[in-house]
């Protein structure tokens, strides 16, 4: 089983809940057990139709950006590379010789 299955389970509950809400509002809901167009794709088959992301995932973009901005503000206020916390580890990179302290990010 792939990792993070519990979170995936929660996602499923949210998606099923949203589907129920969409059905109540008379909007189109993906049919349970409907064919997955991605599973039907073939290398030598016809070109795949471009499927627009659902409104749920379009919403995810501003939510993600907003969350990152909040994180940035909180990080700037409360963060700090004092050598004792989470930031400390990220002064390093993983190399074949083990962890090496970063001289700069760009390599």
């Amino acid at each position, binding site marked *: 089983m792939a990792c993070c*299955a519990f979170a995936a*389970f929660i996602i499923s509950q949210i998606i*099923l809940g949203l589907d129920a809400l969409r059905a109540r509002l008379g909007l189109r809901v993906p049919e349970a057990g409907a064919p997955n167009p991605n599973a039907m*794709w073939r290398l030598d088959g016809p070109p795949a139709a471009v499927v627009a992301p659902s409104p749920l995932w379009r919403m*995810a973009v501003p939510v993600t950006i907003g*969350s990152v901005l909040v*994180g*940035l503000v909180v990080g700037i206020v409360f963060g700090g590379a004092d050598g004792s916390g989470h930031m400390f580890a990220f002064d390093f990179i*993983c190399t074949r010789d083990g*962890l090496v302290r970063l001289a700069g990010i760009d390599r």
Partner: protein
Amino acid sequence: MTLAIDDIAAGGWARRSPFQAGRTIGPVTAARQRRTAIVYGACALAGLVPWIAGGSAFLKAAGLGLAFPGAGFIASAGLWAILIVPFVLALFALALFAWFGSGMVLAPFIVWLGAALVAGATAGGEWTPAPYVALGLVAAFGGYVAFRDARRRTAAGAQRLARDASMHTAVARAVELAAPEPDATTRELSADDLASVRYVLDRALQPVEAFGGFDIVDQFQTSSLRYQINNCGYLLAELQKTYLPNFHGYLMTAQQNLIGKYLQKKVWSYWAYETSWGHLNFTNHDPVAPKDNIMLTGWLALHVGMYMNANGDTRYLEPGALTFRWNAKRAYVHDAQDLVSSVVANYAVQAFCLYPCEPNWDYPICNHIGLTGLTAMDTATGTHHAADLKDRWLEALDTEFTDESGSIIGLRSTLTGFRFPFPGGEIGFATFMETIEPERAWRMWAIGRQELTYILGKTKGGEPRLSLSGRGFDFGNYRSGFGGAYASIMSVAREFGDDEMVAAAQRALDEDCGLTVEGGVRRYAKMSNLSNISAVMGRIRRRGDYRRTVLEKASDAALNGPLLTDVAYPDVLVARAWSNGDDLELVLHPGTAKRAQTLTIARLKPGATYVVSGAREAIAHADAAGRMTLAVELDGRTAVTLRPSA
């Protein structure tokens, strides 16, 4: 591997479970839970100070808000609290989901503390009984959780004893059912197997930057591209190791394309977000992370390690072979050794030993894959990181990640020390455990199989099939359906040679999941891409294939013997490519209507003469570079053999 029932069963169930040492949780878990309780208690008590010492309405409401998310509104919002408190709790649940889903550790704190501040800022007056109500709710919730936990522990303890009691019977049954390990010298894919394998080859052989046939939903959770790519890679490596050790050609291209796809920014850029909002790390977004992200480093190490064990190609050990390019200016330049370094360094310094995927969330399943990844890389490069780590790793698994029933828990929060519910079981871990501690893996499989016997049903015609109730859930696209579960059970059953369970799973897949054969490709229309890949794995795997691909290097004959190289896809489908070191045995099938084909063979003895069967030429000569081409006419199953002329 020889199976001795007594030796396997003698290990007992959960031998090193903390339950048997009189402790129910490990020392690190206990310390983290204690810390969480102390911090929570201190905050809650501090929040009561304004009520005891007399403070402003702001301080009283905000302080009470530390008791639980939204509690401040009990003091400040009057009857509106009946609506506002559940709303804040729902918001908090969403924040927890964001934390689960993407490691956004800040989200719950922002909601909790933000609600407390808003309650304080909007407080006009105060409701004197508010602290008693809030603390009463906390006590009721705590009591309920303690009651549930005690009941669960009692049931789990009883389950452990029952498992111990039935261990010998369960192991004996699993061993009795186990098919013999396949004969490496005679392995061949059937026509249906080839049609299934085409499902994976189609996806792997498209241009590196293209993702046709992949499910693209989100890049944080189980539907992520990285898991689809890794599973394709594991499958093709097993395929090459077991059926096609002397075929390179498009099979190598497919595997290299998959690793190339993995390096595409859209696959790994999730880490920049997760380390930003999970670690407050806004500078170093290197996915081969010095802290956490085993879902990338561990999984990819296994992918590359299995690839190397299948064919001996060491290109990914070269500096810069795994370069994760962010943009024109920034790239994270790595190779396979760096993946190993990241996993080893994390195991060395993380308090739980087993360490998180997303910041804070520690998943034992990803750590099984991580340690297996080290094992595969050890096999490929001659190092011994996994062996060095094994005892400490197993000790941590047993003490910090095993419950009272002896089952491995699904996940634990490293920050708080608490475990969270997770749908999983012994079977999910057994395959990976086989390369870590084989006897334990067989015990896990034996107990898991015994406990899954109830899903072995019958068709109307009386043939065995798996039957699960409910709607099911496909982790590859978050839709309903049992295909993923059937395919996973089938893959594991294959590894342990349980043909009865395999047949039942295959029948369930074929009957329920939209089996379609079109254009020579076999797939299940109602399943996600991830579950389809798993179904192909379940179809072609035989007992011990995964273990051998992780633990054994490619044979000398595979590394040095004659090799089928250039051949057209999908015109020529390769069902067998095997050599004893001097000869080459091929079985080919036509993939299209084009029957006349040319094969290129390499690594022959330069200038030597070979006796050929199954091709137009009966005698052929290798050139000075040890290569030759053969013309063949494919007609169904076509065997072609090459032997040095005496």
